């Protein structure tokens, strides 16, 4: 039995390929690792025929830091900070995914206040993440102004986080058994103010970008991902929902206080870039709806149920937990050895990792410019892919 292991060169420059410059119509270009299209640092090797894409070979790993290996050396509490640095745009949701898995495994209980606050900050972050995505999509498609509008909204939400959490990006806020701090006294009031500010802004997005004929033509019918294919490729989150599958963990296996909140799952009908765009815009509205329902009813209680110094005992075994982040299902597999205050093995099922590979299918046959539309609507965060 022989297993053939290849290298990238076998694909790009297979031995024996014609070396003649005049004989080839197709050529390779490198998008990335430092290319404006590569949000972060992803390398796309693109085989082109003129402007038409023949093949896309993603080469990740330019921010591979070995987080899974590092986690094996860190205690249950310490490894939370690593999750901030995978999908940094949904850091709180990542925190929550790991914290929740540890809580489930170790049998730690939380209270309603903790869960409500977690839900609120997670939804705020989803809003923030989508606002940023919207702006970056605009920039990718050549409109710089939406980028700044998107960031303007992000900044407004960041202010809430700065007050309560004390950080803008790498939160480390949701910890096993509780929260790092209790919410800031102004939290509810400020959040309501921000929501009131955001609602008309989302309509503005419609005027500026969504309604724009150029954007619509750049997105409509581009990169169609049928539902069956999306499932087979393991896509989750807005990408899967845009294909028409209402798969949202917040509904399918509700965590936090999502069960008590009333909201709809936005789904698309075709699975093209336009649907992915609309689903995210609609998700922003739904997030606002969720937060509005919860913000006035944060129950009283302590902000943590486990003392910081207390040792968390996770029983031996494989523990899997998952959460719906802004980009899809983040699954955390914890393999506990039983005794040590550290995981024996930690594995992240990152939503971006699976969504990335849809590029290879979606971009084929389109133009260079469409890769950008496709990649932008997949909303990839590269450090989450690389881990």
């Amino acid at each position, binding site marked *: 039995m022989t297993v053939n292991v290849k290298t990238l060169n076998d694909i790009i420059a297979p031995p024996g390929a014609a070396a003649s410059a005049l004989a080839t119509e197709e050529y390779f270009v490198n998008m990335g690792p430092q290319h404006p299209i590569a949000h972060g640092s992803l390398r796309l090797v693109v085989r082109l025929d003129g402007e038409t894409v023949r093949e896309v070979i993603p080469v990740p790993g330019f921010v591979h830091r070995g987080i899974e290996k590092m986690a094996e050396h860190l205690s249950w*509490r310490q490894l939370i900070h690593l999750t901030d640095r995978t999908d940094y745009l949904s850091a709180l949701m990542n925190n929550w995914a790991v914290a929740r898995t540890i809580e489930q495994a170790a049998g730690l209980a939380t209270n309603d206040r903790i869960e409500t606050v977690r839900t609120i900050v997670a939804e705020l972050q989803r809003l923030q993440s989508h606002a940023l995505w919207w702006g970056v999509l605009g920039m990718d498609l050549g409109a710089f102004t939406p980028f700044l509008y998107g960031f303007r909204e992000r900044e407004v939400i960041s202010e809430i986080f*700065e007050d309560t959490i004390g950080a803008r990006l790498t939160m480390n806020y949701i910890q096993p058994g509780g929260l790092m701090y209790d919410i800031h006294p102004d939290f509810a009031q400020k959040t309501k103010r921000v929501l009131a500010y955001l609602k008309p802004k989302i309509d503005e997005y419609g*005027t500026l970008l969504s309604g724009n*004929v150029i954007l619509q033509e750049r997105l409509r019918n581009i990169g169609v991902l049928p539902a069956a294919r999306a499932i087979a490729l393991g896509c989750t989150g807005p990408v899967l929902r845009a294909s028409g599958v209402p*798969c949202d963990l917040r509904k399918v296996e509700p965590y936090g206080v999502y069960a008590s909140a009333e909201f*709809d799952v936005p789904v698309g009908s075709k699975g093209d870039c*336009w649907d992915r765009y609309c689903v995210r815009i609609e998700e922003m509205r739904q997030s606002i709806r969720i937060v509005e329902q919860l913000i006035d009813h944060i129950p009283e209680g302590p902000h943590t149920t486990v003392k910081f110094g207390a040792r968390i005992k996770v029983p031996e075994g494989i523990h899997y937990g998952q959460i719906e982040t802004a980009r899809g299902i983040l699954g955390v597999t914890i393999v506990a050895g039983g005794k040590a205050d550290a995981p024996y093995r930690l594995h992240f099922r990152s939503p971006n990792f699976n969504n990335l590979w849809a590029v290879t299918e979606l971009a084929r046959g389109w133009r260079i410019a469409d890769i950008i539309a496709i990649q932008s609507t997949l909303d990839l965060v590269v450090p989450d892919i690389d881990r």
Partner: protein
Amino acid sequence: MARVKLTDTRKETRTLAGRPVPVVVTPRFARRGRLAVFADALASLLAGMRLTFGYLVRPSTVVTRQYPENRATLKLPARFRARLRLTLDEHGYQRCTACRLCERACPNASIRILTRPGALSKHELDRYIWRMDSCVFCNACVQSCPFGALEMTAEFEHAVFDRRLLIFTLNRYAGPPASVLLKEPDEAKRAAAMEPRDPYGGPVPLNGTDLPYLKALAVAPRPDPVRHAAAPAPGGQA
């Protein structure tokens, strides 16, 4: 305005995994005449231009905070984490007892506590070394401290030309904590026990590897690195 309005959503209930899931189906494009499409296209462009123009002519929409100019009035959130400090009590004595809980809580060894035998106590703080260059500002040290000796402050202006300057000695003096000092009634003895420390004191490392104090932490390369031997070579191994 355009061929599709984002608010034209349709509510439905679908089932997934045996549960009803209320969904909003996002809008698709309507079939329109060629001329209507053209008119819509123009209208959509104009609508966008109107929006941006509205921002241009309303200076009140400018949200920029002018940082270096607004330094005097800049108010940062109290919880913002940008610099670690050792707190002092009301007498100006440090609270840190050199118990090393923070050192243990730190996920990437950015804190190193050096102790020495003291005159008033068996064991007292010599240097509290904090590596700002590698700190992740996760607040674990502050949370772990049972004495409230640590705090994160929002000072953020620390840009330097040399990385070595990001390694601080946090304690103002080497010596026992307030709890011990206050037991000693003699002022002179107290003062003698407090040897001043400078933030930039001590030789500082460039790379994390050549800091003598930190050597104990870094279990540097094992004697026989098996990296090249044990792994099966990539390519055609059974």
